[in-house]
C-alpha cells in the first residue's frame, strides 16, 4: 500500500540473484516454491511413516514375535497413524493446493502469500517436533486417537503424549491458517469469467476441504487444550475421579475426526476428476452432480461422527440415527463413482500413467467405500470396530483412495511443476507394483479382522488362524515399499534427464497448461479470461487446434509480485517455542515458563514486524 521500495538501479532478477538459494527458499512467499516444499517435506514424513509401517508388519509377520518391545510397537503405530494423516496425506494434498490452485484459477498467487509461507513452516516445525520425540525414546504411545483416560497424566506419565498433544496443536495452526487462505483465494482470486460453476473440480474439492478444515479443526484444538490442561495443569476434564467423562474426549475427537476423513479424501476426488476427463478426452460427466455430492458429503460429515463409537453403547436411538446418517453418505459417494465411470464411457481413453493410477483409485476406492457401508450397520460394526477389518477398510480409502490419487496427481502435474516428464515405463511399473503390494497387504486384513484379530495388538497367539493373513500382509507391505522405491528411482531418473516437458503434455483442459512448464514466477503474463468450463479445451476448439502453440516465456515486465519475507518463518519459530515451552517449563513456573513467554513475545514481535513490513511489491524488470 505504501510506495514501492526498490533500489532503482537493480532489477528484480539481479536482486534475487544476490540471495543465496537457502535464503531464497526460507523466505519465499511464492506459492509454487511453497508447494514444492510441502511436497518434499510431506514425502519425507511419508517415508518415515512407511518405515514405521514396515517395522509394524515385520513384527506381525509371525505370531508371538518379539522383534520389537510392546512399548516401541505402541509408539510405532501411534506415530504411523499420526504421521500418515497429519504429516503425509494432508500436506501432500496441500502441495497440490499450493502449487495448483492459483494456476487453476488463473491467479498470480494465493490471497495471503506470507500467511501461506507461515502455514508451511508451522507444519514443518510441528512435524519435526512430533518426530523429535523418537530421539528421546518417548514418542507418543497412546494411539492417533489419544483416547482418555489412557492419554491422561495418570496412565500416560512422561512426555510421550505431551509431544502428541502439543504437536497436533501446532499442526492445527498450520491447517487453520491455510484453510482461511485457500478459502479466500478460491472465492476471491478467480480469473475473470470463472464463475463458481466453471471452476475445475479440484478447485471445488479444495474449497470444500477448507470448509471442513475450518469447522473441524477448532473442535480438535479445544479437545487438545482440555487434554493438555489435564496433563500439564492438573485439571480433570477426562479424569473420572473429578467427574470428568472420557466420552467427551471421544465425541470431540470424532466431531473432528470424521470430517478429517473427508479432508483426506476430497482432494483425491478432485484430482481424479481432473485427470479422468483429460485422459478420456471428454468432459467430466455430471459436473453439477459432482459439486453437490461433494458439498453433501462434507455437510453429512458433521453428522455421523458417533459411528466411530457404536461399541460405547450410546443406546439404540443414537445408534440408529448415526447408522442411517452414515448410510446416506454412500449415496453421494456412489454418485461420484458412477459419474467417473460415466466420464470414461464413450471416451477415447489414453492410457498414460496418471490414468493408470486414477483408474486404480476408482477400483480400490469402490472396495473401501463398500466396506465403509458395512461399518455403518451398527450391529455389524460391533464385530468389526477395532479389528483388522477396519484397518483394511481405511487403508483401502486412504491408500487405495488418497495415496493413489495423489500419486496420479504427481504424475499428472509433475511436468508442470518441474518441467520434466516422469518416465512412463517406470511409472507403469510403479503402478503395477503398487497395486500388487497394496492388495497383498490390505486385502488379507479384511479376513484377519473378520476372523477376530483386534487392532493395535503388538502380537497375537498362534492357533487363532491369523498367521497366514498376517504373513501375506507383511510380504505385501515390503512389496509396497519396493514400489515406492520405484517411484523414487523414477524421480531421480527424471531429475537427471535433460529432456524438457512441453507446456501441455496431456492435452489439458485447465488454465495451468497454457503457461510454460515450469511456470514463471508470475504465473500468467496476462490475466486469463474464462468463458466456459474446461476453458482451455474451449480455447483450443475456438482456435481449431489440437494443441495450443507452445507459450513464449514472458519477461514479467510491470507485474507486481510480493517480496520475500523472513517473518513467516520467525512467527513459526515463535509458535513452536510457545508450545515447546509447555513441555519443559513445568518445573519452573505455572503455567507459563520462560520458553513459552519467549515464544509468545517472539510471535507477537514478528507479527508486528510482519504487519508493518514494507509491501515489497516491486515490478519486474522495469
Amino acid at each position, binding site marked *: 500500500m505504501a510506495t514501492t521500495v526498490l533500489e532503482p538501479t537493480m532489477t528484480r532478477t539481479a536482486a534475487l540473484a544476490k540471495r543465496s538459494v537457502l535464503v531464497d527458499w526460507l523466505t519465499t512467499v511464492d506459492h509454487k516454491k511453497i508447494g514444492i516444499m510441502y511436497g518434499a517435506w510431506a514425502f519425507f514424513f511419508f517415508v518415515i511413516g512407511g518405515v514405521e509401517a514396515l517395522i509394524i508388519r515385520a513384527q506381525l509377520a509371525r505370531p508371538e514375535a518379539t522383534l520389537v518391545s510392546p512399548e516401541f510397537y505402541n509408539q510405532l503405530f501411534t506415530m504411523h497413524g499420526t504421521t500418515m494423516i497429519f504429516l503425509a496425506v494432508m500436506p501432500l494434498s496441500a502441495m497440490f493446493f499450493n502449487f495448483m490452485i492459483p494456476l487453476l484459477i488463473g491467479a498470480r498467487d494465493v490471497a495471503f502469500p506470507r500467511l501461506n509461507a507461515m502455514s508451511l513452516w508451522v507444519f514443518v516445525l510441528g512435524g519435526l517436533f512430533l518426530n523429535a520425540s523418537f530421539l528421546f525414546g518417548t514418542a507418543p504411545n*497412546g494411539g492417533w486417537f489419544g483416547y482418555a483416560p489412557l492419554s491422561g497424566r495418570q496412565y500416560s506419565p512422561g512426555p510421550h503424549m505431551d509431544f502428541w498433544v502439543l504437536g497436533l496443536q501446532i499442526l492445527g495452526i498450520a491447517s487453520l491458517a491455510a484453510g482461511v487462505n485457500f478459502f479466500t483465494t478460491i472465492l476471491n482470486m478467480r480469473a475473470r469469467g470463472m464463475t463458481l460453476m466453471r471452476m475445475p473440480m479440484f478447485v471445488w474439492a479444495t474449497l470444500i476441504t477448507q470448509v471442513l478444515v475450518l469447522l473441524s479443526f477448532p473442535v480438535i484444538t479445544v479437545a487438545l487444550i482440555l487434554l493438555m490442561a489435564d496433563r500439564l495443569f492438573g485439571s480433570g476434564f477426562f479424569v473420572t475421579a473429578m467427574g470428568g467423562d472420557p466420552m467427551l474426549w471421544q465425541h470431540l475427537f470424532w466431531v473432528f475426526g470424521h470430517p478429517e476423513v473427508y479432508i483426506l479424501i476430497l482432494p483425491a476426488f478432485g484430482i481424479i476428476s481432473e485427470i479422468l476427463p483429460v485422459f478420456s478426452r471428454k468432459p467430466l460427466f455430471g459436473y453439477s452432480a459432482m459439486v453437490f455430492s461433494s458439498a453433501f458429503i462434507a455437510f453429512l460429515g458433521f453428522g455421523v461422527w458417533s459411528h466411530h463409537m457404536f461399541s460405547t*453403547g450410546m443406546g439404540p436411538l443414537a445408534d440408529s440415527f448415526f447408522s442411517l446418517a452414515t448410510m446416506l453418505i454412500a449415496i453421494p459417494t456412489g454418485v461420484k463413482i458412477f459419474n467417473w465411470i460415466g466420464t470414461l464411457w464413450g471416451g477415447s481413453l*489414453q492410457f498414460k500413467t496418471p490414468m493408470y493410477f486414477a483408474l486404480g483409485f476408482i*477400483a480400490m476406492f469402490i472396495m473401501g467405500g463398500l466396506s465403509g457401508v458395512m461399518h455403518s450397520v451398527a450391529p*455389524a460394526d460391533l464385530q468389526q470396530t477395532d479389528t483388522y477389518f477396519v484397518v483394511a477398510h481405511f487403508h483401502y480409502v486412504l491408500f487405495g483412495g488418497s495415496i493413489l490419487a495423489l500419486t496420479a496427481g504427481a504424475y499428472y502435474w509433475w511436468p508442470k511443476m518441474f518441467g520434466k516428464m516422469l518416465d512412463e515405463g517406470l511409472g507403469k511399473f510403479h503402478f503395477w507394483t503398487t497395486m*500388487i503390494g497394496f492388495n497383498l497387504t490390505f486385502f488379507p486384513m479384511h479376513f484377519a479382522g473378520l476372523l477376530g484379530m483386534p487392532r493395535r495388538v503388538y502380537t497375537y497367539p498362534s492357533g487363532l488362524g491369523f498367521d497366514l493373513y498376517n504373513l501375506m500382509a507383511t510380504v505385501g507391505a515390503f512389496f509396497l515399499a519396493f514400489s515406492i522405491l520405484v517411484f523414487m528411482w523414477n524421480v531421480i531418473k527424471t531429475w537427471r534427464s535433460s529432456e524438457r516437458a512441453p507446456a501441455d503434455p496431456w492435452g489439458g483442459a485447465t488454465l495451468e497448461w497454457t503457461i510454460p512448464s515450469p511456470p514463471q514466477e508470475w504465473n500468467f503474463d496476462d490475466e486469463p479470461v474464462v468463458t466456459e468450463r474446461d476453458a482451455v479445451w474451449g480455447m483450443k476448439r475456438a482456435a481449431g487446434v489440437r494443441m495450443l502453440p507452445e507459450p513464449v516465456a514472458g519477461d514479467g515486465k510491470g507485474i507486481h509480485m510480493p517480496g520475500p519475507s523472513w517473518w513467516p518463518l520467525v512467527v513459526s519459530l515463535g509458535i513452536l517455542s510457545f508450545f515447546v515451552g509447555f513441555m519443559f517449563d513445568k518445573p519452573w513456573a505455572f503455567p507459563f515458563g520462560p520458553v513459552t513467554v519467549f515464544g509468545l513475545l517472539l510471535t507477537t514481535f514478528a507479527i508486528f514486524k510482519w504487519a508493518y513490513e514494507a509491501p515489497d511489491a516491486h515490478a519486474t524488470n522495469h
Partner: protein
Amino acid sequence: MALPRALWRRHLPLGLLALFAVVVLAGCAGENYPQSTLHPKGDFAELVDAVFMKTVWWATAIFILVEAALLYAIFKFRGKPDDPEPKQVHGSTVVEIIWTVIPAAVLAFVAVPTVQTIFKTAEIPASSPDGQKPLTVEVIGHQWWWEFRYPELGIITANEMHVPVGRTVDIRMKTVDVLHSFWIPQLAGKRDLFPNRETRLWFTAKEAGEYPGACAEFCGLQHGKMLFYVMADTPADFDAWVARRMQDSVTVVPMAAAIPSDTVGPAADATGLMDTLTVSPMAQAAMDPRVAEGEKLFLTKACAGCHSLKAVGGPPVMVGPNLGGIGARRMIAAGWMRNTDENLKHWLQNPQEVKEGVLMAGYTLSDAEAEALVAYLRTKQ
C-alpha cells in the same frame, strides 16, 4: 522391460484373482478360527451375522456390477492419441437421478434390518431361551486382565468366564483404570468398558465350547495380551463348576490383602502372618510333598498379597486376578499361554519376560520353589 511388461499384462489379473480366491476360501473354512465373527455360536452374534451377511451380499453384488462396468469401460473405450475427439457428453439429469435413487433403494434394504437389529440387540431379554432369568455377570477390566463376578452366586474369577449353554448372560461392565472393550467374537459384539458408567451386553451360548475373547480397545502397553476365554458349559458342567468354586479350599488370606486397587505390590506384612498359618488339610492330604511347600511359598512369597484363591467370600478388591480353580484353567497370563506346568513355572519365574510391564514383579524363585508353587496351584481345581 518388454518381456516383464507382457508377462504382467497377461498373468497379473489371473494371479490376483487366484490370490483373491485363496484368501476368500481360506476365510470360509470354519473350524480353525475359534475367534471368528463369521462362525457365530451365540444368539447375539447370530443376529449380528445375519444383518452383516445381508450387507455383504449387497456389497458383493454392487462390487461386481460396478467393477465390471469400470473394466468394461476401460477395455471398450481404449483410444489412440490420434483418434478423433469423442462425443462431448456433459451429463444427464435422468441418469443422475437413476443412480441416486437405486443406491438409496438398496440402502433401504440394508437400513431396515440394521435398525431392527439395533433395537433387538439393545434389549436384554427378560428370560433365557431355557426359561430361566438371565445370569448376571459383572465384568471388570484391569490393565491387563479380566475380572468376572457372578453376584447371584457370589463367585469371583478371572480371565476365564464360565457360562451355561442355553442361558442368557446379562453382562454389566466397568473398568478400574483405562477403557477396555469386551469381545467374544463367536458369541457377541464388542462393548467398551468405562470407569464412570456401567455398560451392558448380553448373549446366549448355543453350543458348549471354549470361546476365546480379547480386549478390543487399546489399553496401553499390554493391550495385545489382554485375552480371555469364555467356557460355555452344559448346564450340568456349569453346576459342577459352580460347586467346585463354592468349595475352593479355604486359604488364609492376610487382611492386608484387601488393599485399595490403586496401590501396587504385596501386602507389607504377609510374612509376619506366617506364625498364624496352618497348612490346609487339603495340602496336607496331597501325595506330593511339594504341594505343602508350595502353599507356604504362596503365602510367604507375597503371592497372597495380590491374589486370592477363594472364589467365594474372598476379599472384595484384589490387585491381581482371583486364582480360584487356577489349576483347571485353560490359559494363564490373561489368555496368553497354555496352562501347562512348564508354562506356569516360566510365568512365575519370569513374568516380565512373558508380559513386560505387568504388575506381577519377579519374585526370585528357584526352580524347586517354582515347581512347588506349580504343584500347589495345580491342586486348585
